[in-house]
């Protein structure tokens, strides 16, 4: 058996462009997904499906079409009113899951980020590639979710496609911030469980997904305003029901884009710092 032909004169490797590097990281994750999609697909579809059944169908029947419910939803059936918000919520939730333990694993357990950055890929490309992949996966499971919602009769019109994009933006904003945070976590410890307990779960409960936030006491309102999910829910629901107004919608989008930009810059910086020491 011969040793491999190694051209000592000049290596075949070359450094990819900035975008090319991000693309290679996405390709790596796609490769992984093709092998493992069954497990992830089940969990990323099953969970929103359970929410849809429990709240949309079950709780929706309880809410019924009483005058109080009609006042809260503007006369829209509860399931239709809930569906675009569930889309945003499931994007934010899967963003939170994908941006915590898998990131720590990439740095610490499997250390595949170290392997990537030992080649010509930079730390920033690793971080932004991981974030991009989270978005791709989120968009795929969101699209499937739209179909599921439609089957249950929760879709009123084509506006739901815009809701899907709003959900994607929401999920990416959340993912960028949590991914940046995860890049600073050295040990499993309590960091992630605290994050879920004190940030992610309150965010999913008090962002206007299941009931309008104006039903909450006045002093809670400022807490709602800082929640990216609330901004995303407002846009997603406005698009699906056709109830959105220009200025508030632009405001919500500006907040989400702003968070995504800040999050992405932090991801690039913190991945660079963690991988170069």
């Amino acid at each position: 058996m011969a040793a491999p032909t190694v051209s000592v004169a000049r290596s075949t490797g070359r450094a990819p462009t900035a975008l090319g590097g991000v693309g290679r990281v996405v390709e790596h994750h796609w490769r992984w997904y093709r092998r493992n999609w069954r497990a992830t697909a089940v969990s990323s579809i099953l969970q929103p499906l359970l929410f849809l059944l429990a709240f949309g169908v079950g709780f929706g029947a309880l809410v019924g079409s009483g005058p109080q419910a009609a006042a809260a939803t503007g006369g829209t059936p509860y399931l239709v009113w809930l569906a675009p918000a569930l889309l945003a919520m499931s994007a934010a939730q899967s963003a939170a899951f994908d941006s915590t333990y898998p990131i720590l694993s990439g740095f610490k357990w499997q250390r595949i980020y170290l392997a990537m950055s030992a080649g010509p890929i930079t730390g920033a490309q690793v971080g932004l590639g991981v974030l991009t992949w989270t978005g791709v996966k989120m968009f795929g499971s969101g699209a499937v979710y739209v179909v599921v919602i439609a089957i249950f009769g929760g879709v009123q019109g084509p506006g739901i496609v815009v809701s899907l994009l709003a959900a994607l933006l929401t999920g990416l904003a959340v993912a960028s911030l949590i991914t940046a945070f995860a890049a600073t976590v050295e040990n499993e410890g309590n960091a992630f469980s605290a994050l879920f307990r004190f940030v992610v779960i309150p965010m999913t409960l008090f962002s206007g997904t299941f009931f309008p936030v104006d039903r909450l006491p006045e002093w809670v309102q400022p807490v709602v305003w800082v929640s990216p999910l609330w901004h995303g829910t407002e846009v997603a629901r406005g698009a699906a029901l056709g109830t959105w107004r220009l200025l508030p919608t632009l405001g919500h989008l500006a907040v989400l884009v702003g968070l995504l930009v800040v999050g992405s810059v932090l991801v690039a910086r913190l991945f660079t710092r963690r991988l170069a020491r």
Partner: protein
Amino acid sequence: MSDALVQARGLRKSFGAVEAVRGIDVDVAPGEVFGFLGPNGAGKSSTMRMIACVSPRSAGTLSVLGMDPGVDGPRIRARIGVVPQLDNLDAELSVRENLEIYGRYFGLPRRHVKEKAAELLEFAQLTERAGDTVEELSGGMKRRLTIARSLVNDPELLLLDEPTTGLDPQARHLLWDRLYRLKREGVTQIVTTHYMDEAEQLCDRLVVMDGGVIAAEGSPAELIGRYSTREVLELRFDPEHRPTAEALERHAERVEELPDRFLLYTVDGERTHGDVVGAGFVPLSSLVRRSSLEDVFLRLTGRTLVD
């Protein structure tokens, strides 16, 4: 040495108040296998990470493939191969996928990567396991795969950080064989190890590092010639009748006292043994052997390398 693949002058690395590398000069010539030898914490891995262009240097100058890692990191990394101390394969992908996906990071076309992966599987004797996930492999196989992966871009320089630590003897010998083949192919290699036999097997030239500085430099034979004698007589005594080192000193060029035995450095071990016994000392056991790098290290640092 203007044609050096790696050249360092006054290279330093600090982590906060801790100085891991305290000013070293290194030249690695094309085609040679160069070793960093030293105990854990000597600064070998920190030095390797600076040469691999992943860890920024704290002071001094460093050039790799004629470029500055601080400026051209990605371009240098595109042309080198790295075998890290801890495997960082993607455990959930197959053996073949690990090679193919890694090649893609180096801007290589899919077709090229596919062919290269087949060739490297053969080289690492992993063709039969190509479809298995990495999780299913033994430690030695993972190590071979890591080495194969580092060759996916036909590197001009290969960096191996403790390539055989934790492997059983058979797996080590197989790896050494593979590295020797690469050397014959002309691939320049830099190896860190805390195994003396590994350094003697692999390295044309090496430096002994201790406490972040270079304690000695040369080929294994040169170092042994300079810092040790041709042979070593090892003597163990009953603790009750253990002589002092001073009492043994007049029979050898130099005596090292270890917790469990004495090392007598001498040109002719058998003859020294005869002298010692003739002087009335009765060792429980004795052994005559050739001097090794272990003795050089002991001489330079006063400590054994691996306890």
